[in-house]
């Protein structure tokens, strides 16, 4: 079957991108099961209108936008809050339990702090630091302006830095 405009078939798209989509969704949702639900729902919807999506210049970007919107939507809010509460509890314990010299512990502490950021800030952060997106691409995925992207990112980084400093202070470490 001809795919006009060099479009990619749905099955091929899934074969090539499914794992990456799952990683992305897991990173923003901080819950692999919630991420799985979202990716499944989105792909089923995407399949129904694949003739349009497949013909686009960047189908992956579009599907990523669907995944992000789905996660940020009101119907996922409750699930996301439960994850955040759970991770928030975890975050309180990580510093005291861990040896600060241990890179693994550092990382786990950061992970817990990222997990309790507001959802949209975390999505912007993942798009920048995991998907290596430009401000313009992040704006497209989040459906907002580039200046909103920059403010979301800087607020997220401020929060993380404040936590980092507080934590270093309590542990007597200078970073």
């Amino acid at each position, binding site marked *: 079957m001809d795919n006009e405009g060099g479009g990619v078939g749905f099955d091929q798209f899934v074969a090539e991108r499914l794992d990456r989509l*799952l990683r992305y969704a*897991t990173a923003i949702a901080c819950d*692999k099961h919630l*991420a799985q639900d979202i990716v*499944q729902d989105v792909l089923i919807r995407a*399949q129904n209108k694949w003739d349009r999506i497949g013909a686009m210049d960047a189908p992956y970007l579009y599907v990523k936008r669907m995944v992000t919107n789905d996660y940020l939507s009101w119907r996922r809010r409750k699930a996301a809050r439960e994850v955040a509460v759970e991770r928030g509890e975890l975050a309180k314990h990580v510093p005291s339990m861990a040896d600060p010299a241990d890179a693994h512990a550092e990382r786990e502490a950061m992970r817990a702090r990222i997990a309790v950021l507001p959802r949209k800030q975390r999505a912007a952060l993942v798009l920048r*630091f*995991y998907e290596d997106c430009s401000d313009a691409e992040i704006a497209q995925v989040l459906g907002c302006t580039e200046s909103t992207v920059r403010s979301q990112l800087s607020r997220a980084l401020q929060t*993380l830095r404040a936590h980092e400093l507080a934590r270093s202070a309590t542990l007597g470490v200078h970073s």
Partner: protein
Amino acid sequence: MNDLIRSAIAAEAEERVDSRTVLAELHKAKKRRKPLGLIIGVASLTAAAAAAAVIIPTAVKKTDASPATNPPATVTAQNVLLLGLDSYGFTDTIVYARFETDGSVSAVSLPRDVWTGGAGGQKINHLFQEDPAKLTDAVEKMTGTKVDHYAAVKMSELGKVADAVGGVEICLTAPAKDQFSGVDLPAGRSTVKGEQALAFLRQRYGLRNGDLDRIKRHQAFLTALAAKITKENALPVAREIGRTIHVDQGWDVLEFAQRFRGPVKIRTATLPVGPEEITSTGAGFVVDQAQAKQFVEKQFGGGAPAEPGCVS
């Protein structure tokens, strides 16, 4: 701090579920989508037939419709425009069909060379490309009925649709050979698919009544195609059609699909038109509105299925 953020996010992402479990779920979801596939298949088939123009008004006998099954309360009879688009986006075939709640279909082909608004006016086959609403408005005015929905497919896809059902049987009263369409078929019964199916649907030169004869071919093809749709091939057919089908927004296809429970029977007829008239803008047909309204009302009202039989 950036590297720490990077590695923290990567660790989080690493937790994702196995993609094979998601693939399995997607596969299950595909299977559940059958009704939708069936409806799109039926709609597209009908659109193929869209050419339908039975010039000879079939004697339509009104019979008491006996409700064989009780369809779900939400299903209502709907009037749908089934459109076959040529490569320029013009509606090469226009079939106006009424889908009853029991899944039966009465269809009226509207010849593409009909002028809307009198001789020399705009041809009906140009309206959809300008704005789908212009076509639905014109059809509503001409027939005195309400158009509920429309579905459009590219005519060029119909060869693949014929492939998907393993070929469609047609019958010719004389051999057909024409260099423009590339058709080359013997008299009598043949099973057409792929390019030959397309050529059969496309041939206009060499037919005594031009497009009106072609409309009969479209009707014969549509009826034979609809009869070949089964639960098993509905999905492949829908997949072919689904690549190019275009339906109006807000059409609840799932609700629509509920009426189909078995092979689809289609009664076809062609809207009666006046003699061909030549004007400075080309040749076309004038439609008498009062006659058109009466004809559509009668055809949609029910009657015995007309056998398309052999076509020229």
